[in-house]
């Protein structure tokens, strides 16, 4: 091939550019455009997105083309003389009606998709999703399985230094939610505090989790895999740090996971009857504290003045233990201090309270056993 001629050169560089772009977008497709996702709805939404996008591109070519033409050819420096027309009812009607028809063409498929999206009837599985500053609680309503899922410790460890190289930084959790494929799953959303929004792009589910009201949405996942998402509604300080991880698995694996979760719960319940040493409680409490309390009260217990009280030297933490147990169990209405009795087990509660009293610069010297928490509930 000869590149001597100018058009040849143009073509060559154009094809070069295109191949670079294609290579780039093949490798980075996910980074440039909306995902097609793994549910029927996500695919429909993607198609609709692309239709509207291409309509915009075509209109854009028309408008910017006409503008570009004027700019190139109707310029004074080229000797262009200004015409004097400034009105045409016909043209005005045309460019009112044609866009209207285009809009109707968009509205028809959009209506169908929306109706489909909102149809949560006949679900196989129902899962309650509760937003809590800054984690998600999942309750499998049919199975009685419930757990809280928060940002993985690995992400927390590196966020103040350099996270490069940490795969799934900020998109990993301690306990992922496991869902079966090819089942209609209905999610029920609510919140314990402010408004959050549960969003997993591959499932095309984004729904606000409201305090005091229940919203719902649904998904049928067609491919097994790991799908990640984030909270999408500003919910305070750590809004950026409450990710979602979904493991979509086959039916058998799902059943097995449910069984494991139930066994785990039974084990935790049995542990509540045991007596623990101070050391064990403090060691366990440290983990619970860092995962659940440090976001507000600070990793060292210093709090944030004006917003979240310090644990170090706090009158409640260093005072009578009953008041301490009460605020952690029941929270304080009208403040960001949530009730933890629905989120943590008896052991974890006993551990974190004991930890606060005997660490973070405090040394009250007493401890509380899980059995006492059980009674206080």
């Amino acid at each position, binding site marked *: 091939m000869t590149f001597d001629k100018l058009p040849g050169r143009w073509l060559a560089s154009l094809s070069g550019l295109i191949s670079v772009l294609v290579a780039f977008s093949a490798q980075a497709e996910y980074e440039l455009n909306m995902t097609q996702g793994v549910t029927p709805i996500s695919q429909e939404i993607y198609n609709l997105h692309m239709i509207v996008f291409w309509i*915009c591109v075509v209109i854009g070519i028309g408008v910017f083309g006409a503008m570009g033409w*004027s700019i190139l050819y109707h310029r004074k420096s080229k000797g262009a003389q200004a015409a004097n027309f400034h009105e045409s009812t016909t043209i005005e009607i045309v*460019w009112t009606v044609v866009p209207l028809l285009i809009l109707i063409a968009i509205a028809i498929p959009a209506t169908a998709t929306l109706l489909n999206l909102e149809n949560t009837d006949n679900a196989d599985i129902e899962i309650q999703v509760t937003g809590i500053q800054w984690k998600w609680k999942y309750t499998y309503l049919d199975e009685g399985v419930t757990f809280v899922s928060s940002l993985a410790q690995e992400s927390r460890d590196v966020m103040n230094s350099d996270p490069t190289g940490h795969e799934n930084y900020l998109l990993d959790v301690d306990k992922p939610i496991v869902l079966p494929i090819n089942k209609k799953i209905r999610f029920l959303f609510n919140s314990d505090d*402010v408004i959050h929004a549960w969003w997993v792009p591959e499932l095309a589910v984004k729904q606000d989790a409201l305090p005091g*009201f229940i919203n719902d949405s649904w998904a049928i996942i067609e491919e097994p895999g790991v799908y990640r998402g984030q909270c999408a509604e*500003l919910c305070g300080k750590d809004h950026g740090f409450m990710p979602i991880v979904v493991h979509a698995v086959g039916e058998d694996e799902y059943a097995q996971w449910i069984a494991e979760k139930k066994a785990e719960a039974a084990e935790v319940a049995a542990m509540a009857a045991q007596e623990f040493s101070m050391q064990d409680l403090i060691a366990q409490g440290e983990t619970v504290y860092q995962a659940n309390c440090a976001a507000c009260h600070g990793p060292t217990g210093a709090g944030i003045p004006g917003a979240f009280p310090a644990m170090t030297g706090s009158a409640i933490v260093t005072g009578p233990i009953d008041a301490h147990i009460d605020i952690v169990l029941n929270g304080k209405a009208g403040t960001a201090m949530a009730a933890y009795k629905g989120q943590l087990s008896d052991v974890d509660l006993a551990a974190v309270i004991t930890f606060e009293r005997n660490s973070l610069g405090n040394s009250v010297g007493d401890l509380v056993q899980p059995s006492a928490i059980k009674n206080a509930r």
Partner: protein
Amino acid sequence: MSTEITHGDVHEEHHDHGPDKGLMRWVTTTNHKDIGTLYLWLAFIMLLVGGAMAMVIRLELFQPGLQWVEPQFFNQMTTLHGLIMVFGAIMPAFVGLANWLVPIMIGAPDMALPRMNNWSFWILPFAFTMLASTLFMEGGGPAFGWTFYAPLSTTFAPDSTDFFIFAVHLMGISSVMGAINVIATILNMRAPGMTLMKMPLFVWTWLITAYLLIAVMPVLAGVVTMMLTDRHFGTSFFDAAGGGDPVLFQHVFWFFGHPEVYIMILPAFGIISAIVPTFARKPLFGYSSMVYASASIALLSFMVWAHHMYTVGMPVAGELYFMYATILISVPTGVKVFNWVATMWRGSMTFETPMLWALGFIIMFTIGGFSGLMLGVAPVDTQYHDTYFVVAHFHYVLVTGALFSIIAAFYYWVPKWTGHMYDERLGKIHFWWSTISVNLLFFPQHFVGLAGMPRRIPDYSLQFAEFNAISSIGGFAFGLAQVFFLYIVIKTIRGGVKATDKVWEGATGLEFEQLPSPPPYHSFTVAPQVK
């Protein structure tokens, strides 16, 4: 002819009516030109303050990880950046332009209510000082986003929120007074022969904007008052535990908020409709359809508020209605763009700085319009909502839209205001520098948004790193370009080639045809006759 008459008036009869000297001139002034200047300077200062906050945001987002600021402070930056840009930069800039231009465009000697005019301005510096002071209070400033959704802004907000509420009340009072003034001026003080359908489009769009302001600013005042009583006086408007509903907040807020975005773009339409004909040397195409399109946009803007709330769990019938009404707005908006293009068509175009900014506006505002149409399609919005795609969208309409039109207006009218031409070479550098950097800044945000990056997060996962770095570099460059603009502004005020009275070869309108550059302190003390 009438130019001379105006001159004569000033020198022979009103020579004692020149401006006072010193600081008190600005404090006590009731002159529309002085007040316009004050508003424009306030807007510029706020642009730089809000811009500095944007720089903090872009700095933190330059690379993954938390390097510069704490998440809580980051949230204060996004919140105050939004509030300051909306209420401190864009809106006062348009009010400043209205003050300067409406009287000299309609042949009036001043605004109808000059003392109130002084008050509307002087409230604002106090409001913004109060708002900014929250940053130094215990617990920090407001950190719940410029949309301040309850209950994050009520039960879960810092104490400084009460100062925020009071500041918003003051801004609202100022805006409503400004709007009343604009309406009273336009309806009562037009020169003989200036019928409504002969008014320049800037006057028309401001008249419509003023009605929008009067209709919705009280709604904003209402919603912050409800917050205040929820916070302190035991009501539960937004608290489900007391029988209220947090979603009610969003309905009330967006009933204000959606017309608000048109408040920030309608005057821009007026500016572009003045500039394009001048440099195409051809009358505006479809004047009356422009007026009707502006009015229909304004009406529709009251009926689409819940398109900001597609994920909040509305009944499906509501979502369908809001989707249809929303995408309908693209029809009158399209008409505007088509009319501008038709005005250029077969014109005799030149490309002085104001025209460059106007052309930039048309192209980039249209891009923002396209993403707006996409966002209006409810089921797809499930994926776009609260991502960087939305951030890209509204920055295209508000920065390359509203802000670009304000800058275009500056270059277009500053020779009239000061009697000095700006430096054409610097103006062009400013345009290209801003245009390239602003696209580096906001275009990649479409991509990260589509790929799943939520807005209002201080840190992000690694796959968004490249585009965020590009965006930050664009942001720093764009910020610097506006410091350069400050230099151009000061240079132009201080001196420059003397501007002719007509300023531009193709300029039309009373301000160019009947007033000298600069106009006397009191102009049109005798009303001109409009043919």
